[in-house]
């Protein structure tokens, strides 16, 4: 690709300088990106790029800059989906600067990337991140010598603690100022392919600039791993940690739904009803039972989901998830998956959607598809809320936690069974080597966990809100027409009746059938729709269900809710990630 003619260059001028951030996984690239952009980043779609990338406009030194966070990749010449995405991006979108993030302790191998970027002909600044860790490992780096060798500015920084950060940003500013009148550049992959990068090239670049200690000091990771990766106790320890996470979500997240509920009720009673009381009654009914109910339902989930994402961000930043993948691989490979599929399944307990997106790290399409097949079986937080509601209404309090636990067991069993069956088929033959980096343990900072958790939550809300509002409006229509009809005489009630021949044998009544139909849109809608269907407030519905639904029927309802279909967002994500309609319908 050559876009060097002056006419092209003018067309290709970015309206603000574009800076791409690139680096291997576990280099703290996203942490640096978060430090630069604060919470201003948003996920955007780039035509020609198959996945969405996070980007942000930031004011630095009186200049507006656009930062793009490229997926973490191991090799610019690699073939995994993420690696293809980066190559396509750099070929399709000209950049004014590349920020290369490197884990300073691993510069012995990661120096490859700056050398490759140089071959691509892109202007760049190298950031040697995690300077604090490198110091702990007694690694000495002479940035000036290294900078002269590579021919790029090199900075030792700590994105986590901010060390060296101002100088590094000043350097970015300087490079941009120096090339202020130069058009942005497309990556020249032909030049990279023609150059052979040998081990000697790497060694020569580093010699005299980087010094590793003769005997590396024993790290905390080595001591901790002796327990956490213990051949026998490692796995039980991991499950104990996950149990703790779910306990925290349960103990703090569930009461918080009540607090949010109190706030939304207050808004409804004090603001919405008085204002809408001025308009016609149907409008009040529509806005309150149709739209507001949906908004309030989403809102009540926010603290619970936020808490879950915070916990998962902390566990991941700690470096524990990749170790869980190591621990579980022994068992996962027997059903055609690998340790990473299990980690994604764990993520799926929060929300299936980010877990599905996480499968992008897998290079083998069969492995990815099989992982995507089992993730929707994960009992996500939205389904959790439905179960808690029904279980609390029907079962005696002492049995509640046990019943809920049994659903988690079924969720795992169903996923493993599905994987075991489908992995027999040639279509899902895993061809990917299992090679996984185990990063050192790192203490997550509050700031980092907050930024990550908040970002995930915003993404979740963006995806979920529309569906939930459309869903509750649909419920409202089906349960309010024909006018004057109530309960089973409405269109919705009749729909529930229509399906009775199928649903009655498994003990699910027409009301609950209707709720399940709406549950296809989003599981969050189920509870809200029950209120609308029964035309009662949530508390009364719980009472009514407790009187009319037997424990066996309630169990059947929950089981059906767990297994029948994932929510629409998940289905849409499966479609987008697998790029196939057939596969979407399949699970």
């Amino acid at each position: 690709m050559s876009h060097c003619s002056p006419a092209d260059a003018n067309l290709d001028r970015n309206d603000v300088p574009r800076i791409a951030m690139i680096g291997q996984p576990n280099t703290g690239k996203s942490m640096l990106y978060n430090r630069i952009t604060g919470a201003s980043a948003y996920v955007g779609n780039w035509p020609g790029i198959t996945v969405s990338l996070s980007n942000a406009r930031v004011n630095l030194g009186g200049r507006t800059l656009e930062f793009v966070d490229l997926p973490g990749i191991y090799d610019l010449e690699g073939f995994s989906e993420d690696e293809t995405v980066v190559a396509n991006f750099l070929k399709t979108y000209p950049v004014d600067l590349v920020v290369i993030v490197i884990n300073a302790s691993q510069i012995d191998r990661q120096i490859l990337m700056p050398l490759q970027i140089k071959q691509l002909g892109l202007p760049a600044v190298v950031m040697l991140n995690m300077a604090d860790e490198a110091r702990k490992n007694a690694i000495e780096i002479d940035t000036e010598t290294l900078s002269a060798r590579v021919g790029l500015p090199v900075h030792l920084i700590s994105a986590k603690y901010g060390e060296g950060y101002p100088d590094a940003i000043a350097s970015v500013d300087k490079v941009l100022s120096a090339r202020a009148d130069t058009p942005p550049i497309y990556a020249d992959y032909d030049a990279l392919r023609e150059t052979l990068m040998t081990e000697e090239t790497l060694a020569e670049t580093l010699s005299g600039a980087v010094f590793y200690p003769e005997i590396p000091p024993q790290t905390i990771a080595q001591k901790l791993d002796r327990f956490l990766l213990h051949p026998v106790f490692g796995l039980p320890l991991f499950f104990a940690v996950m149990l703790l996470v779910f306990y925290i979500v349960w103990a703090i997240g569930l009461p918080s739904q009540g607090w949010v509920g109190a706030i939304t009720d207050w808004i409804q009673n004090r603001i919405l009803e008085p204002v809408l009381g001025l308009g016609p009654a149907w409008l009040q009914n529509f806005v309150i039972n149709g739209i507001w109910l949906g908004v309030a339902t989403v809102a009540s989930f926010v603290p619970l989901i936020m808490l879950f994402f915070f916990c998962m961000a902390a566990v991941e930043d700690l470096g524990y998830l990749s170790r869980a993948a190591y621990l579980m691989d022994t068992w996962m490979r027997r059903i055609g998956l690998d340790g990473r599929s299990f980690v994604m399944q764990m993520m799926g307990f929060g929300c299936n959607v980010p877990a599905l997106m996480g499968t992008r790290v897998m290079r083998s399409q069969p492995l990815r598809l099989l992982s995507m097949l089992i993730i929707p079986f994960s009992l996500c937080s939205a389904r959790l809320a439905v179960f808690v509601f029904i279980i609390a209404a029907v079962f005696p309090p002492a049995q509640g936690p046990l019943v809920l636990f049994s659903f988690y067991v079924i969720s795992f069993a169903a996923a493993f069974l599905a994987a075991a069956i489908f992995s027999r088929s040639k279509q899902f033959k895993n061809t990917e080597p299992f090679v996984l980096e185990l990063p050192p343990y790192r203490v997550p900072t509050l700031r980092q966990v907050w930024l990550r958790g908040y970002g995930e939550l915003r993404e979740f809300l963006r995806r979920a809100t529309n569906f939930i509002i459309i869903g509750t409006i649909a419920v409202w229509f089906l349960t309010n027409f024909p006018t004057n009809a109530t309960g089973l005489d409405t269109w919705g009630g009749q729909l529930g009746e229509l399906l009775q021949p199928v649903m009655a044998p498994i003990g699910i009544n027409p009301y609950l059938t209707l709720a399940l139909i709406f549950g296809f849109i989003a599981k969050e809608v189920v509870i809200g729709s029950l209120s609308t269907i029964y035309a009662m407030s949530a508390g009364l519905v719980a009472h009514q269900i407790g009187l009319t639904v037997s424990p066996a029927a309630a169990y059947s309802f929950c089981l059906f809710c767990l297994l029948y279909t994932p929510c629409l967002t998940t289905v849409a994500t499966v479609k987008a990630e697998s790029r196939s309609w057939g596969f979407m319908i399949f699970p």
Partner: protein
Amino acid sequence: MSNDPTLETLREGRIVSLESLQPGESGIVEIVEAGSFENGLSVRLRALGLSSTHQVSMVRRAWFGGPLVVRAGKATEIAIRRTEAELVKVRKIQD
């Protein structure tokens, strides 16, 4: 201890698979065979610092045929399956 020439070569280091190393033992990578992965395995391992002339040592071995943890180069720990480690040939370093 012995003057047997075969044992001498053994002491200088013989080529074995990474899979056969015991925790604490190390070797120098000779070659990464393609196996059924074409060049997928060697490209990924190169990026992780596990390629020809680099030192690698065995850190731990999971039970029940599970994966291995090896240290590549100076500061990178990698989990790798036994079948994949079988393809990495190393010249064993004698203590």
